[in-house]
């Protein structure tokens, strides 16, 4: 019970924070794009959008600082076995992450509070470190997650950790694909989410130039990324095939090790196979090894106590793939019309699709993380330490989980409420003497 509560609490906290990470990395890029357009064209509309977005950026960053602090508490409170034994192997990455976080906090403050008070140039320059620091911050955290999947850079003899090589641990075999996959996801989540807010506004009849620009810029950035994400996903999956075959078997519901392995869409896994759903023969061998006769390792390659909960992993994975493909399709439609006709499709069905794309991107993000985190179970450090051995021996964690769950819920409601209020507030006034170009 305590272990389940600890995992749920950690999952809740991570699932909450990761959305803010997306906005921390990608949203400043959107804000700076708008400010850059203002500086280049002199069109005041861009300044008004940038200024309004920078307020949203501050709210989201503040919530992210809070949830990030809680995460660093939880690492020690919930997983003392893990931190106590391996903290010195990957701690270096967190040291660099802390540095990035500091830089981000400082320049978010200078940027958000420096409007009209710093020179235009200085203000824009003060914004540049924000996405860079956000990128490095997520890079170092991803490095730690990659290390949990692919623990390298040390030796372990009779349970004693030695010969630590922090840089090797940092640049582990899972680092690169996880990093790229996550960065693209960040741009998809922030881009589709921002666009979806303005798509809703357009569906409600606001069709002015500000709304259209505020929709098109983040949408186009997200759409440029979404198709690429499919390729990166394939890269990630093939790394999992090579280094974590059991996780892949869970993702695909493959009970028995076999050649010509079929691939299933939908269905339910029990008793070593997928029941129901659509089966395509040989497809899994083809997808994983690019060869229909290739042998794919099944769940039976390890004892049952070393297998992750298959259905959770599999459903999360399929959800991510389906939603991700839908987003890529939407992206292709938008990019095509934008390229050929230089316009945004403003038909009702397309605006509805954009409105759904924001929440959809979040669903894909969360289910992706569920896939990799639950798929690694029962290990916290792959093949080295069980999650149950890492967990705290303190009692009372279920109570804490419920209490903190309520607090998180309040935080989420508060954040959405504050953002909605910001959205409803009157638009930024034009600068005196600056007529808006129409």
């Amino acid at each position, binding site marked *: 019970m305590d272990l389940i509560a600890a995992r749920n609490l950690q999952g809740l906290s991570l699932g909450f924070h990761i959305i803010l990470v997306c906005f921390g990395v990608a949203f400043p890029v959107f804000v700076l794009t708008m400010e850059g357009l203002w500086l280049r064209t002199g069109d005041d509309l861009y300044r008004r959008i940038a200024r309004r977005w920078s307020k949203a950026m501050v709210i989201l960053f503040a919530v992210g600082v809070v949830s990030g602090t809680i995460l660093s508490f939880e690492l020690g409170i919930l997983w003392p076995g893990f931190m106590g034994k391996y903290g010195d192997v990957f*701690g*270096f990455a*967190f040291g660099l992450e802390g540095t990035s976080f500091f830089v981000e906090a400082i320049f978010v403050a200078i940027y958000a509070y420096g409007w009209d008070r710093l020179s235009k140039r200085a203000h824009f320059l003060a914004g540049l470190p924000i996405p860079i620091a956000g990128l490095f911050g997520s890079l170092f955290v991803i490095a730690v997650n990659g290390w949990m999947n692919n623990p390298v850079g040390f030796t372990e003899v009779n349970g004693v950790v*030695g010969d630590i090589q922090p840089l090797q641990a940092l640049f582990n075999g899972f680092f690169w694909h996880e990093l790229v996959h996550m960065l693209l996801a960040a741009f998809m989540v922030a881009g589709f989410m921002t666009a979806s807010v303005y798509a809703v506004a357009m569906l409600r009849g606001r069709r002015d130039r500000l709304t259209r620009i505020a929709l098109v810029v983040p949408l186009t950035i997200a759409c440029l990324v979404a198709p690429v994400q499919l390729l990166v996903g394939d890269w990630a999956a093939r790394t999992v095939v090579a280094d974590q075959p059991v996780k892949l078997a869970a993702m695909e519901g493959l009970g028995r090790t076999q050649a010509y392995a079929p691939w299933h869409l939908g269905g339910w896994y029990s008793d070593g196979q997928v029941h129901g759903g659509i089966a395509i023969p040989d497809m899994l061998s083809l997808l994983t090894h690019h060869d229909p006769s290739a042998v794919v390792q099944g769940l039976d390659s390890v004892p049952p106590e070393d297998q992750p909960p298959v259905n959770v992993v599999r459903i999360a994975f399929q959800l991510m793939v389906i939603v991700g493909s839908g987003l890529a399709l939407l992206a292709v439609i938008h990019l095509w019309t934008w390229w050929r006709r230089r316009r945004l499709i403003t038909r009702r069905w397309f605006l509805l699709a954009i409105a759904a794309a924001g929440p959809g991107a979040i669903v894909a993000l969360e289910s992706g993380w569920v896939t990799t985190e639950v798929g690694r179970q029962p290990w916290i450090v792959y093949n080295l330490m069980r999650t149950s051995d890492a967990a705290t021996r303190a009692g009372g964690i279920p109570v804490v989980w419920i209490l903190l769950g309520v607090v998180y819920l309040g935080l989420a409601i508060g954040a959405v409420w504050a953002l909605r209020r910001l959205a409803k507030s*009157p638009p930024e006034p034009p600068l005196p003497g600056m007529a808006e170009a129409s």
Partner: protein
Amino acid sequence: MLATLAALLLVAGLTAYAVLGGADFGTGVWDLTAGRGRRGERVRALLRTCMGPVWEANHVWLIFTLVVFWTSFPEAFASVMSTMYIPLFLAAAGIILRGSSYAFRVHTGGTRFENPTALAFGLASILTPFFLGTVVGGVASGRVPLGNAAGDPLTAWWNPTSVAVGILAVVTGAYLAAVFTAADARRLGEGDLAESFRIRALIAGVLAGAVALGALPVLHGDAPALFDGLVHGLGLVAVIASVVVGGATLWLVATRRASLARWTGAAAVAAIAVGWAVAQHPYLLPPDVTVADAAAPDATLWALMGAAVLFVAVVVPSLVLLYRLSLTGRLGHDLPPADDASAHA
């Protein structure tokens, strides 16, 4: 040697957090007691003005401290965190409440959420430093043994030393907040508010001094080893320094030299933190675990030192820039309330 350097980094992070984070928590005390009506509103606006641009950076010191702790002394970190899970989760809840109410209150002005948000902010500002202080008190009085949740989940933090340190954390924060705000109010030309914060600073300063000195007999009974460290050698030097500099701060505040008092006030609080570290040296988790015992292997500590050099090269100049812009009024003092955007421009 490397382990000592890492411990120094840890103490530096904690001291910075005690001063900057503490002052930030302290503004919550004055926010809570600002009173109603026009005057209360002005006091709150001033507090937001002073803390707005710097509060997030102030709180990153906590993350810095945690990161240095778990990288350099992983097992000790795991022991402290798992034994102290009750006060730490309460502090975590306080941090969530406080950070979010701070971020949202800009947008709650004039709504029916205004008063509950202000109350949540004020209460969280008192409870969070108190609970973090009890953790420090529990470690200092030797109540955290090495191991996964090996200490007593209740008495480890609910004991005379912990409660004394918890109260001390709250009052020193309130004191620093009053000193800093008095200086800012004077710089902003808000003479009457500067006066009223001068009075607050004097009251809180006397109170903080009384709690700090009053804690000594408590430690004598409850944590004799720590007490010994504080009345001998370098520990005693730190205690005397804190008393002298703290007294000088009161005099500077009384004679309206607020901008100088800002520095001496910070030094007085820093001296308490340093005094504690010196008093418990060479132990990281008294009574048995020394800094050297608990330290991570050299390769890790070297990497951490590399990160620390990077930190000094990148973060320190950025911080200096932030504080300089903030202290010279080059940063907007608050985001204009959402409903008030037109009035601002």
